[in-house]
């Protein structure tokens, strides 16, 4: 069994469904990218897994961590997991750090919680962590407040805080979105280096397919609260199976070859409360037919490690059992 296995996870805020049955697994040491437009449920997936959503959210499904379901587990079991086994960093580092506490204290807090360190030992470890994430002059910066640091430095502080608990999985929720482009690259490099050095797994949440493909070996594409395609990074680019993935690829500017116009995906993500029947992407899809408005396709294997949830996706690897023909109906699933 994988280190983390999310099984049929659904989240509803009142009557609107934010997640509609997510299945995703993360192996030890693996880097997985989670890609999709704003509001498709990328962050909610992991906030729900760690029990960090407000009480108004209805969460169903299972999240298996090392074979134990942690979804809805009592606080006493969840708190050691948060930051200790699965750490999370967020989009806006300046807002994610407490403005009235010194950064050394905020990092040290995680050390006390998960590794029982206090006093001078904790201080020395905070300085080591700050060195490790590339904050210059750590010995003095330990006393700085978040507003005295730049956005990139604050994100490094967040990463140091996440590393403090020696987690087995780091969930990086759009870690570079609020940062300058040059800083973005530095932070991504840092994450890659840290992963190599510590062997921790990583989930990189992003709306940027380019960013994710450089950093992760496997990519899951999300649309409207569901994973619509999942494959190793290379195959996402060589054999995109879902029209939404193709749309995302089309909106990436190519660095080589002739200049071309970027293709935008028309329309916008449907509101969670007004999900169309059938395939959620159908209203924006240029392939959509009457069938798409009726069936909500389940993921179909296109190759060993590649699946896409589209009735028109074609398997491209011989040894994958073909389900074409009558298959279109075999994989259909009617919306709840």
């Amino acid at each position, binding site marked *: 069994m994988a280190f983390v296995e999310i099984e049929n996870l659904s989240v509803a805020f009142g009557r609107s469904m934010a997640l509609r049955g997510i299945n995703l697994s993360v192996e030890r040491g693996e880097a997985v990218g989670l890609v999709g437009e704003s509001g498709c449920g990328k962050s909610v997936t992991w906030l729900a897994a760690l029990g960090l959503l407000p009480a108004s959210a209805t969460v169903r499904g299972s999240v298996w961590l090392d074979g134990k379901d942690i979804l809805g587990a009592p606080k006493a079991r969840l708190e050691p997991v948060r930051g200790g086994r699965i750490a999370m960093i967020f989009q806006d580092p300046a807002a994610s750090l*407490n403005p009235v506490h010194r950064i050394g204290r905020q990092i040290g807090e995680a050390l006390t*919680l*998960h590794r029982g360190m206090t006093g001078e030992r904790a201080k020395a470890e905070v300085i080591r962590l700050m060195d490790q994430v590339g904050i210059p002059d750590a010995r003095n910066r330990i006393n700085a407040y978040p507003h005295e640091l730049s956005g990139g430095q604050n994100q490094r502080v967040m990463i140091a805080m996440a590393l403090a608990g020696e987690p087995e999985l780091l969930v990086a929720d759009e870690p570079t979105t609020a940062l300058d482009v040059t800083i973005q690259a530095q932070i991504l490099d840092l994450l890659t280096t840290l992963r190599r050095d510590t062997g921790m797994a990583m989930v990189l949440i992003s709306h940027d397919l380019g960013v994710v493909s450089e950093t992760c070996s496997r990519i899951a594409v999300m649309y409207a609260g569901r994973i619509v395609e999942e494959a190793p990074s290379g195959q996402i680019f060589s054999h995109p199976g879902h029209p939404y993935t193709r749309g995302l690829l089309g909106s990436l500017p190519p660095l080589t070859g002739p200049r071309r116009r970027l293709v935008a995906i028309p329309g916008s993500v449907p509101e969670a409360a007004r999900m169309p029947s059938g395939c959620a992407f159908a209203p924006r899809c240029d392939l959509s037919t009457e069938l798409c408005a009726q069936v909500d396709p389940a993921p179909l294997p296109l190759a060993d490690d590649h699946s896409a949830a589209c009735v028109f996706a074609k398997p491209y690897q011989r040894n994958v059992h073909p389900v074409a023909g009558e298959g279109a109906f075999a994989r259909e699933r009617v919306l709840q």
Partner: protein
Amino acid sequence: MLQYLLSRLLRAAVSIVMVVTFVFVVLRMSGDPATVIMGADAPPEAIDAFRKAWGLDQPLWVQYFAFFEAVFSGELGRSMRDGRDVVAVVLERVPSTLALTIPAFFVNIAVGIPAGVYAALHRNSLIDRCVMVMAVTGFAVPSFILAMLLVLIFSVTLGWLPSAGQDSWRNAILPIATMGFGGAALLARFTRSAMLEVLGQSYIRTASAKGLPWSAVVWRHALQNAAIPTITIIGFMLGGLVAGAVVVESVFSWPGVGRLLVVSVANRDLAVVQAVVLMIAMTMVAANMVVDVLYGLVDPRMQGQARAARR
């Protein structure tokens, strides 16, 4: 920090000058003190003599500068009623007022802040709703209505507590309850909304994601941040310690500064009114200074501003 304080002091001085000017102008526009004090049917010679004695026959700007000169030399003049030094007249009332406002201030804080925090932490619960109903009531019902309601219940109907005067400590209970309830209601509302705002912030999610128990998230991360806006309200209350009891003192015939102010305004006793208002302005300004210092202690970003101001 020193320069920061000095700039604040300068601003404070400007506020006081403006308040004094305002009082000077308004009081002189709203009626002739000579006629009010001497009576409308007093002989014209007597009125002229009164005006001459108090300098009211001088042009306005002369009176104005004379008044400023007096303020800066600490000579605020004599009461037009009984000829005593106004500073003494005002200061002898201060202990009575503080005997009401200081206990009320502690009631405000001891009740208002915990109620607001609890309501925010249990948003939409039954207790939250009760707290909010009480808070809105305390906010919406004017203090004199509440005061009369309390008198009706505890003095008239039950006969437990006296309704007026200053004979014993029991006389202070109803005025303190009136002011305590109103202030606690205001503070509970502000604390609740400050706390809700903070609990929705990203750094609270970070603290939870770090693995901190919820109680530690609230105590270590939420409260200090929620304290920042709440301090503003507490500052207003602090500034009102001397002046805040005008209405309540009048209802309960409590011989404090507030009642002195009301009586002096009615009598056009300019010197006393000016002295009271000046003192109120000074306590307000002093309270603001305290708030600024507290901000610096609670919010490190303000210290940054202080440093920037020094450069």
